[in-house]
């Protein structure tokens, strides 16, 4: 029997982008949907852009924003760079900033809004310091200037412990207890699918190389507005960490999101959108007054 109904595709279009980062050829997976102000989304450590599936499927969002997300090299459907098998992966601030800027340039984005979560919430602070005028606004989800490792990261990458099992279990408690079951376990699934050592390599940036405590007070929110939203159940970047960050940056404030954890856009997209919409409304409002 031949079906007569149109296929129920989501509005997301995914493609592979060829570009050079630090002179090395890369093949990155990029998803996008919607029209309007470009909104570039950065996933958490050891995960990929599927975390933003809720945003990509929100009709109101897509009527005003061109939502874009890409998988970092080694993550999701992006290829690892040539030679990945010869050295331990350790994400650096320099590599992360330059990767984001390379994607912005390769896509020809004009002053996008960048919203990142966790390591993405950290890198927006680096972007604010180095490239503020290139962005309309920056949104840090689960954002702190630094994170202390509270468990031995060696467990994340060793041959006698299954990487997918341990990475999933490590982050399972970072999802708030009351979120929808399907979204909780999809979020954990992404972690279970991460390649060996990828989560741990990202956390090198999160817990060591990306420490930006000494510099955050120089962030100029007049050059580029910065918004900070953190889930109340997050014990990786705690509400206290984000409040402390906000206190050091004039012109920003921390919003603590009830019933959410470390992966707000993925663990409960609808609840997260209720916190994101007012922020994006302010971004558009500021545009209108220019």
């Amino acid at each position, binding site marked *: 029997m031949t079906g007569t109904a149109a296929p129920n595709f989501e509005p997301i279009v995914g493609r592979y982008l060829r570009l050079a980062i630090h002179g090395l050829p890369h093949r990155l997976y990029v998803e996008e949907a919607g029209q309007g102000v470009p909104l570039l989304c950065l996933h958490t450590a050891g995960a990929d852009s599927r975390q933003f599936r809720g945003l990509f499927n929100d009709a109101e969002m897509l009527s005003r924003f061109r939502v874009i997300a890409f998988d970092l090299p080694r993550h999701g459907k992006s290829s690892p760079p040539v030679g990945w098998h010869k050295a331990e992966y350790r994400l650096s601030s320099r590599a992360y900033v330059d990767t984001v800027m390379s994607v912005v340039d390769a896509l020809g984005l004009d002053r996008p809004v960048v919203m990142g979560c966790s390591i993405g919430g950290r890198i927006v602070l680096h972007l604010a310091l180095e490239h503020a005028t290139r962005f309309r606004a920056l949104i840090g989800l689960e954002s702190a200037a630094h994170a202390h490792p*509270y*468990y031995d990261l060696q*467990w994340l990458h060793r041959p*006698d*412990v*299954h990487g997918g*099992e*341990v990475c*999933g*279990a*490590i982050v*399972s*408690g*970072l999802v708030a*207890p009351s979120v929808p079951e399907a979204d909780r376990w999809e979020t954990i699934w992404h972690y279970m699918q991460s390649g060996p050592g990828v989560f741990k390599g990202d956390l090198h940036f999160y817990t060591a190389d990306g420490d930006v405590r000494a510099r955050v007070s120089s962030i100029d929110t007049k050059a580029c507005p910065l918004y900070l939203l953190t889930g*109340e*159940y997050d*014990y*990786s970047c705690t509400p206290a960490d984000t409040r402390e960050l906000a206190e050091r940056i004039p012109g920003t404030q921390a919003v603590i999101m009830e019933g959410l954890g470390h992966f707000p856009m993925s663990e409960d997209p609808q609840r997260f959108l209720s916190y994101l919409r007012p922020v994006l409304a302010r971004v558009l409002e500021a545009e209108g007054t220019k």
Partner: protein
Amino acid sequence: MVMLAVERWSSLANNDAWLTQRGRYVSVAFLLDTGGTDFLVHIHRGRIERVERGPFVMPAWGFALRAPAEAWAAFWQADPPPGSHDLLAMLRFGKLRIEGDQHVFMANLQYFKDLLALPRRAPAEGTRA
């Protein structure tokens, strides 16, 4: 003081087919220090085989989970508050200490998280009529 409803806990664990399936490679004795009472929990192939109640003179265990009574009381609430809702959250805020050979614990982390959370569904002994 936190009292663990040991029999109810064992029964919940051993009647959970998916939990015991996930723990099928777990055979270990671990010490559960509830801040006043120590328990030696003997796991065999994912099932709670036996729980001994301390005090112990010479306990032998693979790893130990130690937290004060009030930390376990918060953790074992039906709806625990942020920071008490997960073993690693307790670790993060300095309420839980993990000692010993942690390999089996980390290799089976979700199993142990779920096992230790089961008393949320078991009334504490102290509250029994």
